[in-house]
């Protein structure tokens, strides 16, 4: 049913830390790797060795430059790596526009999924998604998308510790966090709280579950770390070596 749940029991989602993301694409490729054989398998690749290579990806890394003119800017440009996958929105129009009921949001955990057996491949959901999180698999004729690794996070065939999304467990800098953003006491909620986590395109009103942590203010002043702006010269410039003549320390 493409009607959205009134409420969901959990709001599972990701928190992405733009302060430390180095743009390594590990999460994107590990996502591809897991999901290629997972719930939405395959993630078809077209012209894989030719000039028009393209395929189904659930997670992508963009790189932006912000010119530093803003009030949190340092005056000079700042490069920000920006991973983006489905944000599992609360008011997910991608679901409500779906004519077949193939798109749905789970009541249990808020995960937005596509039921490929019902999907007619009309692509309307991808038009309705502001975040570019819907992936049309042309060769399968159906829409696919980030599943929040639903086939990992509850998977009894995996060790407890591995029951997190692939992109989260692989991120080398730990810039990705997974949890219940509906529970104010969860680690992810606290993280969002403490670091001023925000919604992408809040004005769209989709109420994304995933949150982004802004880059921390860059510390470029000596004062930022409690240092002086320069050191005092203590040597006698005419006879500098004097300074150490009597510095006698044992070996």
């Amino acid at each position: 049913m493409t009607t959205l749940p009134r409420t969901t029991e959990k709001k599972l989602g990701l928190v992405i830390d733009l302060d430390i993301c180095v743009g390594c694409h590990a999460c994107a490729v590990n996502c591809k790797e897991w999901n290629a054989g997972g719930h939405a398998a395959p993630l078809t690749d077209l012209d894989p060795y030719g000039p028009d290579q393209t395929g189904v990806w659930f997670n992508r890394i963009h790189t932006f430059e912000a010119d530093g003119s803003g009030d949190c800017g340092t005056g000079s440009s700042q490069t920000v790596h920006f991973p983006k996958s489905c944000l599992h929105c609360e008011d997910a129009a991608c679901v409500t526009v779906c004519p077949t009921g193939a798109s749905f949001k789970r009541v249990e955990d808020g995960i937005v999924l596509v039921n490929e057996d019902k999907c007619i491949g009309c692509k309307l959901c991808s038009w309705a998604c502001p975040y570019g999180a819907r992936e049309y698999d042309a060769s399968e004729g159906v829409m696919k998308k980030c599943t929040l690794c639903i086939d990992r996070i509850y998977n009894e065939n995996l060790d407890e510790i591995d029951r997190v999304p692939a992109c989260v467990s692989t991120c080398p800098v730990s810039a990705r966090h997974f949890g219940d953003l509906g529970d104010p006491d969860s680690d992810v909620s606290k993280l969002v709280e403490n670091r001023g986590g925000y919604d992408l395109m809040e004005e769209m009103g989709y109420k994304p579950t995933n949150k982004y942590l802004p880059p921390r203010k860059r510390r470029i002043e000596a004062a930022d770390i409690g240092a002086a702006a320069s050191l005092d010269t203590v040597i006698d410039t005419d006879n500098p070596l004097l300074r150490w003549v009597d510095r006698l320390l044992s070996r």
Partner: protein
Amino acid sequence: MSRNDRTDPSNAVDLSPKVADEIKYTTCYMCACRCGIKVYMLDGSIRYIQGNRDHPVNRGVLCAKGSAGIMTQNSPAKLTKPLKRVGPRGAGEFEEIEWEEALQTATGWLGNIRKTDPKKLAFFTGRDQSQALTGWWASQFGTYNYAAHGGFCSVNMAAGGLYSIGGSFWEFGEPDWERTRYFMMFGVAEDHDSNPIKMGLGKLKGLGGKFVSVNPVKTGYSAIADEWVGIRPGTDGLFVLSLVHELLKADKIDVEYLVRYTNSPWLVIRNPGGADDGLFARDANGDPLMVDSDTGELVSANLAEIKPRLIGEADLPGGGKAVTVFQLLAERYLDPQYAPEAVAERTGVSADNIRRIAAELAHVAFEEQIEIDVEWTDWAGRKHDKMIGRPVSMHAMRGISAHSNGFHTCRSLHLLQMLIGSIDCPGGFRYKPPFPKPIPPGIKPGNSCAPDTPLNGPPLGFPTGPEDLLVDEDGEPMRIDKAFSWEFPVAAHGMMHMVITNAWKGDPYPVDTLMMFMANMSWNSSMNTRGVMEMLTDKNEETGEYRIPRIIYSDAYYSEMVAYADLVLPDTTYLERHDCISLLDRPICEADGAADSIRQPVVELDRDVRPFQSMLIDLGARLGLPGLVKEDGSPKYPGGYPDYIVNHERAPGIGMLAGWRGEDGKSWGKGAPNPQQLEKYIENGCFSHYEFPEEHRFYKMANKGYLEWAASVGFVPKAEQIVLQIYSEPLQKFRLAARGHGDRQPPERHRARVDAYFDPLPIWYAPFEGTMIDEEEYPLHALTQRPMQMYHSWGSQNAWLRQITGSNKMYIGRKLAERLSIADDDWIRVTSHHGNIKAQVAVMDGVNDDTIWTWNAIGKRSGAWNLDPKAGESQKGFLLNHVISELLPARSDGHRYSNSDPVTGQAAWYDLRVKVEKVTGDHDAVSEPQFPTLPTPTGLPQRPAILKYGQGFRKEGGKP
């Protein structure tokens, strides 16, 4: 909008699908970081590759490359059978042959060489993960014409460190990520320590340490730095020495550390013009001397408890004067030429910023000193109740080393670290075992070369004076790459980037066979790529023979180099073979413990290819190489590489692997071979990790407990303090020879150069290329960076990775773009003194104004890697290498030095100077240069038009 309360049952999801029939552990080799991996096998194919959480290198994470392993295993560029060249060299026309024929051919060629003149075999390997075997093999064969890729990679980093602190950055050391409060990273885009650095940066920033990245380009790691210092390429040395200047002026240095752990109190003979000028004053036992301030006497610098003088001249017993190292360094670096305002313009870093950074370093090092309450005993047996830490750490890589002044810049960095006492202390830079080593390590390059006899040592080593050079009686080079010659005396890793040029010229002599392993030398690993292709195919007019008569090459994939081989020995992939990542090679240790690891086959071979190492052992046995045959001439390691890994002993009790040695498998590091060793490794996830007790984790260069342990496992010869060498006597020895002393002196034409660049204290000089071209004409610096998701040339065959980076652009700064009215996607011509390329532009903010850059090794030759000849890699992508020359412009006397560091021979990739013009008028949107399309050799599969890998896993029992 209407709402529902239940998930429609018709949308139920299988939450616990089966993920594996079997999980196999091994070691990743999508790059040289060598992380531990966990391979999920389902229905006989790879379902998923995950990082091994227990592994000391990656602690469970996996980078983009590692995560794409499935697609490398799946690559249509995998070679399938031995190939014999049938067409002209370079045309890529081959005939498939059987292994027996291939090995007989190789044995024939190499057998003759060994019987007559072993040095006529030039054996060079690229990705140097098997040096412990290949280097040893070369010396058994009897040729010193062996090296791995280190010479064009980062030998400046290695040598700069090993001649100063007995360790190095590279992947040989690491910052104390947990404790460091101030981290300076110089010239790093990715590093060999790919995952550890990323894990570390995340930790560091989480804990609130300040991260400063010194780099002309603001991408990758630099993007998350608190502060970006967009320095002018090649000027870091000047910047660092200016920081040293500031710290000295303010006396913000750790004098106690200097006295205890460095040679700063040692006495240097002052005897201008004398044969001993600048050498250490030594006593009868050869111990360096220092002045005991209590008695004024000269005493051995190896004594403890003495309070040495730091300043002042001393009279030597035999007459003559000496002065302390510390005085020399203070005199030099207090000089106004290193003052911030004096270097600001050159480096592009403002005087204020240099002063501030110096102040920040001093603040963190001395005001934020940390102490950990761990008792430890120093080399002299003195107990210390705590470990003092200066939480400032540094890391540097090729942005420093890939310049012709890289060796000294690297030494300058270590000098800075020593001055603030932050080497192997809590919060500082930390050695990874087997480092620290004696300074420099006591290995000398073998130099004897006789028919049917092994080399009198390993092919590579660490010269400590002219006597260790490989030069003939006229002082001319003995090695084909001219390593360890007067042109590049400390070329500790060899000079692979010169082999083809020299062999083609027959300078110093022609070789018979060039055997290469895992190095794409006709493409991204070479400077002057077009020239190299021509040299490889050039024939000698008289004989009609190729100037490089025979080329044997082992690759696993259809790289650009394959077409230039006469005999192709196809290797397995990293998931199909045994390997060992040995402490005798480039280790995978981390500061808190020593580690090594293995690879085991996880997927079955489906092609007629053989693991290179096993093949090499077989070849060695066929050649009857001493170490590889028994007395009766039968193969010593019939089981191939796995057999060798377990049973070969380098020294009694010391073999390729350190774990589970001894008959009982209980000893670590030293012990008799253990037939069960590989099983033990496999049980343990394919690695062995020896964690140090707390008290051994810092001050390893002077930590009694650690040193004794290190000696017991052969990391160091003796459990003696390793005194850090601010002043390098070996360098002075070369310099003295250049000044006319000793019986081994440089030929006249090299004297001035050796004299100038073998300064025993760090210096800065402008990178060579810039001083030899017209800077007006070539105002820009051009660089490359590693893309984190691609490994050199071999990432492009990967169907997933090439969707991320399928072509590269030239990134230029906004100011420059406006000046030349160039916009995104315009085409430009980039010209150096050597040649030009045509490339497409991307404009950006975060780059040094005088610098342009691109991603490394994305450009491909049309037809290579079994990619569509029209693929973006060849049509839009490009290599910067075409405009980089392996030779510097001619000197006044016509001599052309290699485009390398004058001390170590490190290839100076980043000295490149260029000009940029917009390509106007109508032209097809294709990068230049272009080369004839390489044909796909027989045996390689058809490129699929569509990939649905994993499809089968969805339905029980299916195949992908």
